């Protein structure tokens, strides 16, 4: 299942939030060699890991293992596309109450094959459920173009915000993803399940 972690309930998830930052360091810094800040030598934490950030955490049943996570930021506040990569948008950075940004989507490095697929699927459906519950119509994201086909193959309806550009040796582009109730139906059908994945109890407390 997927927990919604906001500034209000973050104290209840402090262990799992630390585990997320640790896994993010292993994935984005150690494996993918991104040039981003590391805190205390083991946590990947940047300026956008602040009180406005909402995390979706895929955890095991006992809530003791981080299986995957994603960081969601409101486009009306500082965020990666708006503050670091605005040049990727041809017609300005999309901003609005109904537009949020997806960053740091990852699955725990120890997961293999089917387990990793499950964690990714839970997060994908979790992001759609979160969007529908919170009145979000569009997600934006910055993506390496080599991942583009895999992202779209999940079923996201993507549109480019500008042409891909080469930055620091990687070809990256900004995308906007449209979310509708049909997106949820499609994703659940593809994954082969009907139940919601967000922990509803956690949402009430996170609000």
């Amino acid at each position, binding site marked *: 299942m997927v927990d919604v972690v906001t500034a209000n309930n973050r104290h209840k998830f402090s262990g799992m939030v630390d585990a997320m930052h640790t896994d993010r360091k292993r994935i984005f810094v150690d494996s993918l060699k991104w040039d981003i800040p590391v805190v205390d030598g083991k946590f990947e934490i940047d300026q956008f890991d602040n009180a406005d950030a909402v995390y979706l955490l895929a955890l095991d049943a006992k809530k003791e293992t981080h299986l995957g996570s994603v960081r969601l930021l409101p486009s009306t506040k500082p965020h990666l596309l708006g503050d670091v990569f605005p040049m990727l948008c041809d017609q300005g950075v999309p901003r609005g109450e109904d537009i949020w940004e997806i960053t740091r989507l990852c699955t725990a490095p120890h997961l293999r094959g*089917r387990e990793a697929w499950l964690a990714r699927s839970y997060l994908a459906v979790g992001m759609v459920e979160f969007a529908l519950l919170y009145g979000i119509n569009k997600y934006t994201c910055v993506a390496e*173009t080599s991942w*583009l086909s895999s992202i779209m193959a999940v079923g996201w309806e993507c*549109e*480019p915000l500008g*042409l891909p550009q080469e930055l620091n040796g990687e*070809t990256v*582009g900004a995308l906007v993803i449209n979310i509708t109730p049909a997106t949820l139906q499609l994703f659940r059908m*593809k994954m082969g399940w009907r139940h919601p994945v967000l922990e509803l109890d956690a949402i009430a407390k996170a609000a």
Partner: protein
Amino acid sequence: MSLVQNVQEFVREANRISDIKELQVLLEGTVRELGFDYFALVHHVNIYQTRGEVVYLFDFPPAWTELVDRKGYFTDDPVHVACQKSATPFTWADVPRLITLTTRQEEMLQAAKTAGLGGGFTVPIHVPGEYTGSCTFSTRFGREVPLASLPAAHYVGSFAFEAARRVVQRMAAKKGGRLKGAARPKLTRRQFDCVVLAGRGKSDKDIAQILGIADQTVHQHMEDAKRRYDVATRMQLIVRALFDSQLAFADLMN
């Protein structure tokens, strides 16, 4: 209209198409706006030997497509082979840098010119658990590849392929199949463990010892897993589980 707007317009329309002919028409127009003459949008499989959810859409000079059919160029097309070596797009001039060309492949590149093709630009399409595919844009003989259009062509290629992929999957689903994700066989945790160890070259006896279960139980897990995939041998089982990403290569190499 700027190139970006061309691409955005293309993507909006491609996201809405309901059949493959609409995509063909849409691409024919966009390809020319980008400064190319031809295109091919294909999964890298032999179309005559494969059924089902395969993308196969092109607009190339007939002289070339006839030659490809007659000589069976599909099997070792150097551009397709180069796609296996590259996550990012490349021009045909880059191909010798990506792979070592065989004599036959050098002939193919020469034959393409004779058949009326100039340069080309290819976007490899890699989706886990699916055949590799590509979207290629090409100019007619005597015209240079329009370098300024390449970032736009990159996106048009990626989005066009995804649009085609969705149409093909929808058609397959209508024919009685289910969507790909749901149709994929699933292994139980224990079957998965056994398949991983078998993939690392262990015998049933070894696997039984490692997992602390009876030889016969291991045998049963392997048999059940084979049944789920509808295959006859352990080798087929491992290959299929790798192919649909239930297994990762990393699982087998630890």
